[in-house]
């Protein structure tokens, strides 16, 4: 095979390898930024009237955090957890700079519910929004008022 052809074959192979490595690095970088679990938090109270809890971002402790409530896998509401946790000093799992959130459930009809709270993480300059589970799902009942 003439030398220029060999060089072309080499270029094609090198290009394939570079593009493969490039895609792998894109995927790894994407996964790290979109799914990096740096949030901690807890649902502290669930009853027929409200869902409350706190959330903390280890990467940006003072930054307000968006949380979303889903009841029975249906989106209910979104809140910005942006105020200081009131009882952080009194509880064993205290985290300074944790932010409280509260969802009002007073308009919910009677029934059994499963509540899930997710933290919204933005990445890619706002191009992507991923949801991370904050806590195990909590089951509760809304009774007759």
């Amino acid at each position: 095979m003439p030398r220029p052809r060999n060089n072309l074959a080499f270029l094609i192979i090198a290009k394939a390898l570079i593009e493969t490595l490039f895609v792998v690095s894109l995927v790894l970088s994407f996964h790290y930024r979109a799914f990096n679990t740096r949030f901690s938090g807890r649902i502290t109270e669930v009853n027929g009237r409200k869902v409350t809890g706190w959330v903390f971002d280890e990467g940006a402790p003072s930054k307000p955090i968006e949380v979303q409530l889903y009841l029975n896998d249906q989106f209910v509401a979104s809140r910005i957890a942006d105020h200081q946790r009131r009882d952080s000093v009194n509880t064993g799992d205290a985290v300074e700079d944790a932010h409280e959130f509260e969802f009002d459930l007073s308009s919910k009809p009677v029934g059994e519910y499963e509540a899930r709270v997710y933290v919204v993480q933005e990445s890619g300059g706002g191009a992507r929004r991923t949801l991370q589970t904050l806590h195990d799902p909590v089951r509760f009942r809304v009774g007759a008022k």
Partner: protein
Amino acid sequence: MKGEDARSEVAMKNYPSSKWLVACEIMSLVSSVVVAEWAVMPFTGRGAELMFAGMLPVAAAFALMLFSRKVHGETWREVGIRFDNFWRALRLLLIPMLLAALLLFALGLLLPKLEYGVPRVRKTPAWIFVWGIGWGFLQQFMLQGFVNRRAQMLFGKGFRSVLVVALVFALLHMPNPWLTVATFCGGLLWAFVYQRTPNLFALALSHSLMTWLLIATIPDALLHGLRVGYNYF
């Protein structure tokens, strides 16, 4: 000119034993575009990050095309960067383009409304036309100046190589159904004309006009802003 065309034919048949390499060249170019459309778009952010990440597959594709051109001994004139056959190429394009325009206007009347379906910044015909010529030239350079010439090395001039070009062009516009069909038809026409009269400027002009007609007649709800790859969703 006949001598040059003949030389071009000879250059294409210089190394019949390395057809696999020519096929790899086509696949390599396609892979760069696929990486840009299906990996860079979903896995990067916006703005500078997207531009920076998108540069790698584009640069790789151009490195391949330029080096391959050198290896195959192709001149720019053979590739289609020339003016002497511009009007001849346009004449070949004229009637199919008129027929396509009539079809698009008919579809435009049948579909909900006749309007520009692209985002506001692209709504002026002049902007679409100028943008379209540059973008059209780039696409035709890759498609005809590279893929078509290598398809001819594999299958010779004629239906099979024209079909390869159209299929590659359509594949790279998936999963947008309207654009896939439109680019398949356009790919057939442009590949056929290029094989008879290689002139990338005439093809870029035709590409631009047909793009303008497409977005002027088919509603954006169907065209999805001409988005392709992951960006379509």
